[in-house]
């Protein structure tokens, strides 16, 4: 990727390392952090209210007994996809342009997976018994039920979270050492030093590091596919029309990647503007992100087409009924909202001018984020509210607490992410240097 203009090694270190050490946008950061904390408090209040009273505070009912907690979980987990995909897959494929993006993409992944991971827990009727889903040596000899897609889900998400965290941290070690060396106060030196694990930049360090990093990347890549495939089985394993389809795993993975690239684009645009890193995250990067976004979007669109085709081709009255509910039912806004927001603005990305415009790319990505949210809503609610027996058909109306919990998770996402931006090099310095002239 020699066509990407890269700054000199010195510039990289200065530009990136200066961000945590001499934070350039203190005021903006504090405002953002204040908002994030406010949202986080909303989340805490919502969860406390939930734990005091029970899941009845939400709009869930019979038949829509999964609601916001589950589809928002899927949405967050989808966002969390791009981090690992960009870092690990592109690393293995030698796409070096990813070196400008991988650090914050991975951090975003971690934060999103935290938001995602907390939802299935609080959505439980009795969250304090969550540990029953783990295969611990219970005195009663009861094991989890391994046929359940929820059980696979726990494994998939936990594995993904752990591997993503390790991968991110390993990638961070050399830069933490740089931070340690450049930090002025003793406290910062000590803290960065602690986490730098005694990194001295010896050749043997690099050798071992490279092996480990590549190994972790190789482990992480299949997880990208497995975790969202698994999430899709949460739905596809049930017999509910609109869920019970083999297209679900790839459909979910592609949708996840799509929404993930959208949020990476948004963060890249914000970060480079806020921290004046235009030299590192260049228009060329945006152009590439735009292309990837377009490609994954088109693949997701293929999923939409095939989902509808599947239902029609099956000739199954229930499947067709659910398709009709989606395109013309009470919640048709979620179906058409998803189609319009996901795919209409996306077509602008065929044009280089649009891809190179941070504002337009940002707006298209934001549209995709909302569109994918609607898609998750649509996939869950429009399948459940009218399944088989007309007598059990119902309606779903989210309550204040559904929204407050959801908006609260934005705080849960932003708070750690802002702390990351503040204290940790948000762009991988040494990797960026690798592709610099050295």
């Amino acid at each position, binding site marked *: 990727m020699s066509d990407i203009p890269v700054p000199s090694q010195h510039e990289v270190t200065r530009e990136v390392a200066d961000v945590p050490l001499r934070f350039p946008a203190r005021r903006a950061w504090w405002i953002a952090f204040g908002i994030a904390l406010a949202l986080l408090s909303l989340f805490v209040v919502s969860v406390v209210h939930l734990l005091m009273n029970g899941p*009845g505070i939400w709009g869930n*009912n019979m*038949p829509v*007994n999964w609601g916001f907690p589950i589809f928002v979980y899927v949405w967050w987990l989808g966002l969390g996809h791009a981090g690992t995909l960009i870092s690990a897959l592109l690393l293995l494929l030698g796409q070096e342009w990813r070196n400008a993006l991988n650090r914050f993409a991975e951090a975003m992944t971690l934060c999103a997976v935290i938001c995602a991971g907390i939802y299935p827990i609080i959505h439980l009727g009795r969250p304090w018994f969550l540990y029953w889903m783990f295969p611990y040596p219970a005195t009663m000899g009861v094991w989890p039920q391994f046929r*359940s897609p929820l059980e696979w889900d726990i494994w998939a998400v936990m594995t993904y979270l752990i591997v993503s965290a390790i991968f991110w941290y390993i990638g961070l070690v050399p830069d933490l050492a740089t931070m340690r060396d450049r930090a002025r106060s003793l406290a910062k030196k000590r803290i960065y030093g602690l986490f730098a694990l005694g990194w001295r930049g010896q050749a043997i360090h690099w050798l071992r590091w490279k092996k480990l990093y590549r190994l972790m990347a190789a482990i992480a890549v299949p997880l990208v596919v497995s975790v969202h495939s698994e999430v899709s089985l*949460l739905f596809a394993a049930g017999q509910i029309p609109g869920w019970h389809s083999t297209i679900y795993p790839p459909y979910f993975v592609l949708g996840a990647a799509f929404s993930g690239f959208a949020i990476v684009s948004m963060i890249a645009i914000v970060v480079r503007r806020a921290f004046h890193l235009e030299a590192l995250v260049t228009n060329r990067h945006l152009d590439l992100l735009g292309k990837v976004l377009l490609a994954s979007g088109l693949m997701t669109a293929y999923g939409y087409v095939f989902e509808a085709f599947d239902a029609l081709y099956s000739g199954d009255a229930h499947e067709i009924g659910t398709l009709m509910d989606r395109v013309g039912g009470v919640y048709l806004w979620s179906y058409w909202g998803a189609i319009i927001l996901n795919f209409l603005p996306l077509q602008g990305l065929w044009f280089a001018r649009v891809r190179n415009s941070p504002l337009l790319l940002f707006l298209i990505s934001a549209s995709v984020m909302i569109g994918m949210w609607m898609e998750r809503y649509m996939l869950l609610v429009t399948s459940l509210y*009218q399944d088989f*027996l007309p007598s059990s058909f119902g309606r779903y109306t989210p309550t204040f607490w559904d929204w407050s919990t959801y908006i609260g998770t934005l705080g849960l996402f932003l708070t750690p992410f802002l702390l990351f931006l503040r204290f940790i090099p948000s762009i991988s310095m040494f990797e960026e240097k690798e592709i610099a002239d050295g």
Partner: protein
Amino acid sequence: MSGGSIDIPSMRARLSGRKGRRYWRAIEEIADDPYFARTLKSEFPAVAQLFDTDRRNLLKVMAASLALGGLAGCDVKRSDEAVPYVIQPDGMMPNDARRYATAVTLDGWAQPAVATCYAGRPVRLDGNADHPMSLGRADMFTQAAVLDLYDPDRGQAPLRAGLEAGWPLFETELATLRTRWLQTGGKGLALLCGPTTSPTLLGQIDALRRQMPQARFHMAHGPSTALRPQATRLAFGQLLEPMLELGRAKVIVSLDDDVLGPGPRQLRHSIAWAAHRGEDVAMADRIALHVAEVVPGHAGAMADSRIAVAPSRIWPLAAAIAHGVGVGTPMANLSPQEAIWVDRVVKMLKQHPGRSLFTIGATHAPEAQALGFAVNQALGNIGRTLWFAPSPAQDFGSIDDLAHDLHAGSVEALFILDTNPIDEAPADLDFAGAMKKAAIAIHAGSRPDETAALCHWHLPIRHVLEDWGDARAADGSVCLSQPLVQPLYDSRSRHEIIALLGSAQPLSARELVRRQWAALDDEQWTKALLAGFVEGQDWQPVSAQPRIPVAPPPPAADRGVEIVIRPDPTIWDGSRANNAWLQEMPKPLFKMAWDNIVAMGPEMIARLGVRDGDGVRVSHGGATVDGPAWTVPGMAPNTIALFLGYGRSKVGRVGDNMGYPVAPVRKAATPWAMTGGGVAANGVRHVIAVSQLHRHIEGDDLIRVVDTIPPARSRREDPPSLYPKWKEEGPQWGMVIDLDRCTGCGACVVACTAENNVPVVGKEEVARGRDMHWLRVDRYHEGDPVQPSLTAFQPVPCMHCEQAPCEMGCPVHATVHGPDGINEMVYNRCIGTRTCSSFCPYKVRRFNWFDYTKGKPESVQAQRNPDVTVRGRGVMEKCTYCIQRVRAATVAADKGDGRIPRDTVKTACQATCPVDAIVFGDLADPESAVSRLKRSGRNYVLLEELGTRPRTSYLARIKPEDDDQGDERA
């Protein structure tokens, strides 16, 4: 609202454009209108609601349902001398269930029952298997009556001017009155009692009548009696009780008499009717039922032919049928549709003289009813399918007479026993104003209600489970009730209170009842108490000849909408309004709960430009009531129905301020049907607790109908499955539900609620789609949206699938497959992922969204079934096939040879089902009743194509043989 009106032609077009059987549950489904989307769109509840008014409401409801508040300090004991055992006798297990025969009443009629008591607490009521009318079955009112015992809003002590006062003070005040009455022969005393058939009470009143010849005695009639007294007086010159023998008839023609509908006779009629339907009954032996009805009812749903007629058409139809069978009335003008129907039923009636039955609803004009008796006379049915019993109301004045006397000032002292005229009497009687003219008014009743509030005294009477008593069942037999528990409150027996009117030292209730049956020796008496009824004391037929000709009723003042007034399907005349089980029970044909509605046909809904739940103002003769409009397919044209029992202000915490009162528009002259009414939208929007938005599915086969009984066959091939079959050991439990028998009465739902401690969640939660009933009765219509050609009921418990999607979904083994085929729910293991319910194709699972049961005083547990876990928050629950009964039978069998005797385990729904539609048993035993039915050619399972292999299956409904009316009905 005008923009949201529905378009019937387009609905019909939509329906006709589809192939296969089409079911629909609500008009909106066919209308496919975005209106509902709009109304249901999410709104942010105010922050004020954060801490949940709903929950408070819910707790209120729960508290009332299950005893409580003031009760916490009371002991609930069996009324025997309570002496604790020092040494427990051999074989006596304090927690074993004990069963006592007793009877509860509806409209004064006995419902034979057996009460199950644990540790001296009556926990549930079932039918009395020894009683020939009940055969162990019970209707929903009987099932729910146990809850009234624990009602915290019952009268707890005598009230004088609304303040607590002791019985001694009442006795002192009464003594003065009694002395005067005994001197004057009771001049100025008027007694009004609720409907009763109690020989003891009637005997006591007779005695009073002899003691005080100047006193006046009145009886208020329940909705099941309605205008029968007037009709029989017109026809026979005396008050008689018509007794229908459905089982002896080959053809039944009903003019708006819902013989299978709710009421004191539902059980008797349903059992007799169902005995001629089902698997082993030849087509020729089935009873043909032809119904012309105003409001769709259970009889209409099960009828071989049905037409919807306005109430003003009942007389012309009766006259035409009378003409047809040769009674000699002039022929009336009929519409073409009516004429076809009348021709058909007249032909059938004439084919079966002496084996036919013609009946007209008790709420219709006495003249029409009298003509009906003449028709039966002409057909030779009297004494065969119809006989007459002496009416208990024979020597009583009516409530209209009483109001007249009160207004005239001739009543000084008014004594009201167990009735609520302020709430129930038509407004034009001005009963409240009339009562003020009495110098003293005394109310003895179960609760300090609207009438009690206007009386000087309120005297709490005992619940039937706390009291001695007797009453006649709908077959004329005498049932006894005996106290099973110490009175919870400072109440007295109604018999003792009546006795107090005539004597300062009255006998006890037990002595009074015993004295009534003094003819029995002690052995016979004990036997009668054990059995719950007195043998050999049944009513004997009165020979009676109806007068002919019958003059037509006065012509109706026409123009305008016709209004009929009906008892509520679940809370009856309001006497059950504080019973949360009955409030939460969806009205069988309307599928909404916790409210009364203004029922009208789709055409009128369209004409008014309203939607279900939009407020309408009903006016008649200057009076108005406001209530929510509700579409009822199959309603008579240009007719609306109002339902009693709601709009209460002093019934208690459950029933207060629900729905609208009907009394304001009722007229004493025409209390049940009025012409010349008006109805108009009033712009109010009501929240109705219903899960109503159901849609037909193309090509779906939920309710199967067969032309004739197909030949039996062996069990069909199971659809393929990836999973291996579960290991099957011992008995294999399964269930069959016969749709040809199910009349949709709903007794099974209340029985399930009582047996399984199913929580009541309240109106708001039901409106959110969170009702907790383990067993629901789905109602489907087929055909024309205005006059459906088929109305079918389908009870849906858990299907207990052999390849259950729920079991596969649960991550923690909380729902597992038992070796006996029961899909078990392990509450303690459930963490509430709700995957099981998401994956359940039948949506029979229920979730504890809140803690629906916790936080009650200790006494709440008095009603709960100790054999069933009370579920906490965040736990899934569902039908278990009454696993506690299965396990109890297994334990009992293990003491013997380990085999459970054939067909001895009955689920609660099965045991109570009046029509034997639900059969449960062991599929591994090829000779069990359930195995035999599974081999029926009518047997099918829901959603077979999913491969879930349900253990619960259905028997297809059988189409009436002569179905030539199908097309004309459209």
